[in-house]
């Protein structure tokens, strides 16, 4: 399927997802392989973005804004753009129980923060302080100062690149555990009351 037939376009406009399922299955391996080989994005992120690209394709078709071009390259380009945007944001956030915690906000201007944001900041700082100095320094550099792992490896005394990656995993895990403990302390009374 290089382009969509007029019949398929009509079906999609009438709410039939079957032609989109066909597009999805036909181009998925191509998108995964290309983006994985050329850009090194995580597979699950590519899969997520790929589904969103199909959603955007449908919106465009319904709004009659889709120029019927090569479908594979259209879906690939949209997926790539979505991933780039996502990674730009992701670099500075850490995911915790489905919530993204913006570590870089720690030293931001806090004058106009809401009470909820202040509380969140306090929880994050407490969790951070409970970690070893090495992990504190690591997470601060990686998330707040937005330093790449490669750059951190270059200026550090880690013997191999793998060891710095292990440190990242270990520190993130410890941080998430601490965060959970701290959150439980803050929110336990509210939860226990129902």
């Amino acid at each position, binding site marked *: 399927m290089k382009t969509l037939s007029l019949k398929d376009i009509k079906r999609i406009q009438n709410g039939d997802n*079957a032609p989109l*399922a066909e597009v*999805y299955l036909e181009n998925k*391996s191509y998108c995964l392989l290309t983006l994985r080989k050329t850009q090194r994005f995580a597979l699950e992120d590519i899969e997520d973005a790929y589904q969103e690209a199909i*959603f955007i394709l449908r919106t465009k078709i319904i709004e009659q804004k889709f120029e019927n071009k090569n479908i594979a390259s259209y879906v690939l380009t949209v997926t790539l753009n*979505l991933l780039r945007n996502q990674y730009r944001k992701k670099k500075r956030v850490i995911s915790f129980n489905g919530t993204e915690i913006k570590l870089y906000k720690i030293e931001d201007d806090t004058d106009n923060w809401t009470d909820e944001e202040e509380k969140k900041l306090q929880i994050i700082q407490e969790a951070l302080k409970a970690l070893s100095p090495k992990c504190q320094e690591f997470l601060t550099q990686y998330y707040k100062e937005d330093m790449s792992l490669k750059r951190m490896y270059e200026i550090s005394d880690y013997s191999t690149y793998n060891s710095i990656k292990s440190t990242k995993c270990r520190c993130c895990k410890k941080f998430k555990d601490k965060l959970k403990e701290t959150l439980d302390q803050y929110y336990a009374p509210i939860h226990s009351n129902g």
Partner: protein
Amino acid sequence: MHQYTRMDNQILIQKFLHTELSEEEIVIFEKRFEEDIVFAQEVEASIVVHLKKNKDFKAELMEAVEENRISKIKEFLLNTQNQNQEKTDQKAIELLELCENLINEKHPTPVVLRNQLSENTDYGMALEAFKQQEYELAIQKLEELDKETNEILFYKGLSFLYLPKPNYTLSAFHLAQIVEGKKLFKQEEATWYLSICYFHTGEVTKAYDLLQTIVSEKSWKFKEAKRVLYFLEGE
């Protein structure tokens, strides 16, 4: 200062949601998002609506994909066997069940001598996770490795296959690289598992061709492959 109309805002937001903003437009967008509270509220409301629609659509799409997979098998069966529609529906489901049963027994973890591999390396941890049937962790550790040998591809492919909710596409994605590659290591095993994955991804002809290769070359699991072929051909 430029005055933006509601229409301008809508166009900008739609472009943002569809990732069509240019580098310059991203700068303008972010600046306005920071400074213009009405615009920021409009963006936030649009994101909520977009995410809701997107989530609903993903569920609908996955349903359509599932139907598409089953219909591909039915189509194949209709072409190879002279059976009525009703019988074919049942056979398609039975085929997928047969495939699941045939890979029910988990593939063994490679035997690694202590002096060959440190348990603390990512690969060592990945193999341990695989052995303990913690497939998500195994995938995570294998993903962190810089190189992709046939063995790494193989265990990554199997980990996706053994997840509580198997991801057949990602499993096939890794296994196909072994099958289509030049290195022979793990190729026979990968071919068998890949054929099973292809039934689930709706690529029935590819699955059928791989099974025929396995049987004709008397490769690993050729008896099982023969069983699936008999079922497909209605013998």
